[in-house]
């Protein structure tokens, strides 16, 4: 009589993914909604607002923005004008949450209130002299500095990083296409690393190069962290860690994504869904997917409980997944 009970117990073994300090149980159905009413195409990015709500950006123009509570309950939706909705950054300005939406199809970045009123539009950076036409500019992500300066990464276009002041005047352009340290192949994501408050820097992903690159705020290359086999989308700072959705791994095959968690020195400490991170002589061994939990993670949002929300690109129009830290 003991055997069946053992088997029954066995079938309730929760999946735990990740390594070392960052391990998670997973709720695959956290954000599932009725797709007849609230459809998604690609779930591109997610952020948490000041009220603790979880905001998802999708390129479905029936509802570009879907707002959940932390339990996955739908609160509201808005947005029908963002066919290429890709990058979503939240910034608090004069005590108010504002959003910066990078739109691949509109070739511009739109700043809105938290409920979707347009405040400002950053057109294609003609003044940079780098762009013969608007279509060559395909912004993927933004980062907003303490002083209100706005950085825009042209990750699907010419690979430049545009630096504006808060008024939208172009101050500087750096980066561009190439394999050298200061250049990019798919400058997909950007954030401001405030972990050293006295010396903020920019962290920018070079996704095809499997590298996270650090620059000064005025665009000088400082250093690169190599993450071989990890096609990292955008860096997200939370506490002393950097979290990065990793859309492909290994040789870059379809459906091989996982999540990367870096420590204070930008070393990989945990790879939920991926191989155990091992450093040999300071070099990370080539990373690959080990469990088919994710298809193509495109962004990770870390909430105030240290739990994660994962939005996925090209993954059968599925809704976000939640990871509970254990």
């Amino acid at each position, binding site marked *: *009589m003991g055997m*069946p*009970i053992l088997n*029954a117990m*066995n*079938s*309730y*073994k*929760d*999946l*735990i993914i990740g390594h070392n300090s960052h391990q998670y*149980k*997973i*709720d*695959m*159905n*956290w954000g599932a909604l009725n797709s007849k009413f609230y459809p998604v195409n690609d779930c591109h990015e997610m952020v948490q607002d000041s009220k603790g709500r979880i905001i998802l950006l999708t390129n479905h123009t029936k509802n570009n923005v879907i707002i959940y509570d932390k*339990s*996955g309950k739908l609160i509201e939706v808005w947005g029908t004008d963002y066919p290429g909705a890709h990058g979503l950054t939240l910034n608090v300005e004069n005590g108010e949450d504002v959003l910066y939406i990078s739109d691949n199809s509109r070739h511009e970045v739109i700043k809105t209130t938290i409920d979707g009123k347009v405040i400002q539009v950053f057109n294609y950076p003609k003044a940079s002299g780098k762009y013969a036409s608007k279509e060559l500019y395909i912004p993927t992500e933004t980062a907003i500095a303490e002083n209100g300066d706005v950085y825009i990464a042209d990750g699907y276009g010419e690979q430049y990083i545009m630096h504006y002041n808060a008024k939208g005047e172009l101050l500087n352009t750096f980066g561009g296409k190439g394999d050298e340290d200061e250049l990019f192949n798919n400058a997909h994501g950007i954030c401001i690393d405030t972990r050293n408050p006295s010396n903020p820097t920019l962290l920018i992903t070079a996704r095809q190069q499997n590298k996270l690159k650090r620059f000064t705020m005025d665009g000088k290359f400082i250093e690169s962290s190599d993450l071989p086999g990890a096609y990292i989308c955008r860096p997200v700072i939370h506490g002393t860690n950097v979290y990065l959705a990793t859309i492909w791994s*290994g*040789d*870059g095959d379809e459906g*091989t994504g996982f999540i990367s968690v870096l420590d204070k020195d930008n070393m990989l400490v945990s790879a939920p869904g*991926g*191989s*155990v991170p*091992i450093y040999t002589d300071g070099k990370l*061994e080539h*990373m*690959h*997917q*080990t*469990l*088919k*939990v994710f298809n193509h993670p495109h962004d990770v949002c870390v909430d105030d409980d240290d739990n994660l929300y994962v939005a996925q690109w090209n993954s059968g129009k599925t809704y976000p997944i*939640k990871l*509970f830290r254990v």
Partner: protein
Amino acid sequence: MRYIAVFLSVATFVSCNLEKPSFGEADNFQLAVPGLKVDSVLFKNSSKVTMNFGHPNSEIRYTIDGKEVGTDSPIYNGPLTLDHSATIKAKAFHSDFKSSEQAMIQVTQIANNIANASIELSPEPHENYKGLGATGLIDMQKGGLQFRSGKQWLGFQDSSVTITLDLLSEMPLSLIKVSSLQNQGGWIFAPKKITVYSKSRQIGEITLDDAAKKQEYQLKIISVPLVAGNYSKLKIVVNTLNEIPEWHQGKGTLPWLFLDEILVE
């Protein structure tokens, strides 16, 4: 009866806690395909096979005889050295998870290694797909289906490509093989005709009648029989279709030609 009670209590617990997340169970998840690499898909003496899978307490099982991998197949515990052509298959296993899909790779023993020959190309490959240049065609390294990654593929946007091969000394030959890629969705078509000359005399020719037909994405090795003889210098002329056929969205334009290796036997 006892385990029915367990189910009932779990069901009650879940229904009373709608806010509580339902966690994914381990045995609903499948392992990813293990890494399977060879140092050379084409080899003269031997090929080294390595496998890896970075999940603790899992194992990789494999076969080298083309059979499906099962729970009784040998466990991988270090690199294998193969001295014959083989099909290697591998799968990852772990007691908590569904076993992985099967990884597969073929290795082929070749008759002659001509890596030391001198080779010239006319015209040069396209700027975007230069690979390793002409010598990449005789380096015994094959490209994969992912023609954009790696350095093995040479891409041409020309209707005729001439490869001049100097084997440095005479070799008895009766066959050459031209390895090409067919990816019609990517506007890459197999060659239409390959002609081989030695000292201005034609010694072999093959026409591919199906080059313009709709065909699947594949690596295509084209064999060109030669008039048997001793040869040291060969001129290989690869001709593409004049234009992409009617049924294709790129109709009327010149197709791409992708080559990665020339073999002689």
